[in-house]
């Protein structure tokens, strides 16, 4: 084995220029694939995470059936034990509860359907940074009948801070929900739908408005990394009684965005596949040239007693080395760029930033530092090497020393 490795190394050095070209092409492919994949992943991650932090969260837990008809009768009882158990899952970052329902509001002779949402003021602010998005007024104080309204609601109703709103809705178990709210702030959610539909109020006030003391509709979670979501969802499904609770991940909650992401991923996969096929054929060409040049040498080796598989192994090591040296060089080249883009994402031009501001997202080109991307590329390159080695394998098993040496 030692001698075979030595031979492979020296053979690679024997025709340095060719080795260099072959290695460089793999390096280029690996560099391109790794940077592209990780920037794509990082950028999407940033976009989706910012979006989810606005309101949705990464995972939501409801009473079973809630997501289908969003009935005020399908609520969860305040259960400190349960929240504790959820917070104990190691990948869970933040959790909070919300009470959501539709309501009619009226002010200054106008009426409109909105969502009056009870939130834990402090937790919600930590989760979404609401206070920083206020256009006017101040943030919610707990135990008050404060509301923060979306900026479109404010303009529709021509509402200002300290104005009063009347709300009417269906409360828990057929109760009437009627109440008075005082506008304490006007908010730009960064999302037109939210701006014209959402009204935030302290959870305790929402509970008394909806006659749902100690009840809430939703537990909202975020995880340390968005990649942890499937794992956490799994853990939740296992700890929670499936006849009482339902667990929904962001993928079910923002399906159209996820679809766009998948489409984007698929198109870049196609580009990468074409790149790898082109480069694979390039390497195959080099390998064919090498086989041709060393035909006589291989014939002698077979004549003196080297088996086809031993001969193949020798060549395989060479091709594999080219592949992995290329991969390592490509990764080393990509690494500093990705680290940089991870720590200092590129901000896009003003126009794009404006367009995205509607969604309360700062559009960034960001890289993801994720070693699975490296492993994925190693596997792809290994498979490519296997494919490229197929021809030499056939060629070597069919090699006839007598014929080969006569030429």
């Amino acid at each position, binding site marked *: 084995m030692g001698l075979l490795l030595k*031979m492979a190394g*020296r053979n690679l050095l024997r025709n340095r220029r060719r080795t260099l070209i072959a290695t460089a092409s793999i390096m280029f492919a690996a560099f391109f694939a790794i940077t592209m994949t990780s920037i794509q992943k990082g950028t999407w991650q940033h976009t989706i995470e910012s979006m989810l932090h606005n309101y949705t969260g990464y995972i939501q837990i409801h009473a079973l059936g809630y997501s289908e008809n969003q009935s005020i009768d399908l609520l969860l009882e305040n259960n400190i034990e349960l929240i504790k158990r959820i917070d104990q899952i190691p990948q869970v970052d933040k959790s909070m509860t919300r009470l959501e329902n539709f309501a009619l509001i009226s002010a200054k002779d106008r009426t409109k359907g909105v969502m009056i949402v009870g939130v834990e003021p402090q937790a919600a602010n930590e989760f979404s940074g609401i206070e920083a998005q206020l256009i006017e007024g101040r943030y919610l104080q707990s135990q008050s009948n404060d509301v923060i309204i979306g900026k479109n609601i404010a303009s529709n109703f021509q509402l200002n801070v300290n104005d009063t709103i009347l709300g009417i809705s269906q409360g828990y178990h057929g109760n009437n929900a009627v109440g008075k709210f005082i506008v304490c702030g006007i908010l730009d959610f960064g999302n037109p739908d939210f701006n014209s539909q959402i009204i935030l109020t302290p959870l305790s006030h929402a509970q008394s408005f909806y006659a749902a003391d100690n009840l809430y509709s939703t537990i909202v979670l975020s995880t340390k990394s968005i990649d942890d979501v499937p794992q956490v969802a799994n853990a939740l499904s296992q700890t929670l009684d499936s006849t009482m609770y339902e667990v929904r991940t962001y993928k079910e909650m923002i399906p159209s965005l996820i679809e766009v992401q998948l489409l984007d991923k698929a198109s870049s996969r196609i580009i990468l596949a074409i790149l790898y096929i082109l480069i694979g054929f390039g390497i195959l060409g080099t390998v064919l040239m090498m086989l041709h040049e060393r035909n006589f040498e291989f014939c002698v080796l077979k004549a*003196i007693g080297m088996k086809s598989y031993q001969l193949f192994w020798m060549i395989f090591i060479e091709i594999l080395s080219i592949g992995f040296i290329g991969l390592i060089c490509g990764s080393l080249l990509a690494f500093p760029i990705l680290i940089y883009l991870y720590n200092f994402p590129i901000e896009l031009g003003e126009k794009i930033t404006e367009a995205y501001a509607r969604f309360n997202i700062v559009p960034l080109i960001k890289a993801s530092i994720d070693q699975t991307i490296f492993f994925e590329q190693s596997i792809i390159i290994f498979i490519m090497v296997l494919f490229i080695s197929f021809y030499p394998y056939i060629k070597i098993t069919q090699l006839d020393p007598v014929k080969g040496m006569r030429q």
Partner: protein
Amino acid sequence: MKTDQPLIQALGIHKTYNHSHVPVQALDDVSIDIHKGEFTAIVGPSGSGKSTLLNIIGGLDHASRGKILIGGQDISNLSDSDLIDFRKNNIGFVFQSFNLIPVLTAIENIEFIMLLQGTSKAKRSKRAIELLNAVGLGDKLHSRPNQLSGGQQQRVAVARALASKPAFILADEPTASLDSQSANNLLDIMQELNQLEQTTFIFSTHDPRVMDRAERIIHLVDGNIEKDSYTNGNIKQPTLKQLP
């Protein structure tokens, strides 16, 4: 010196190549016995079938008809993979040129064949050094083939052929690409190994300077043995054809 059971028996070997529309009859009913310790030259004009005969004896090529027995074992029916093992363990090969693996040094080239045989590292290097000393290249252990002259490369090839402790060594025109001094030098070494160690050598040549050195000379003409003689003038077998 010669035992009764021949080391190599070729029995009625025919070889026809059918690659072109005109079949080429390279060997036409060739039978020979070669005993252990013989130093045999196969000579004849170009195209007379020398290489074909050596290749068939060495298990590199199959006869169209006839049998090859090595130490009594019929190798005609071995599978390709078994033949490779058979060659590795029983036959040493020296070809006309480019015998060596270019990226390995002299000593590594010799160790390589022993590695294929599964010899331990310590034994390998000990034997490789002995053999390189025996062929007069004790000072070139770590030279690569391209740092050696043609004659030196052929000597390394002989050393490699010996390394696997084969039953015999086949050398197809080992001196053809050498100047006469190197050719003589190589023959000296082969002869010495033959005399000291009883190594059986069969080599082909059409070089008159070299064929005189053989103990036995087999003349091939058009795929037939025309004459089979020992250098003491003893004609071993009457040839089928009448001499002119």
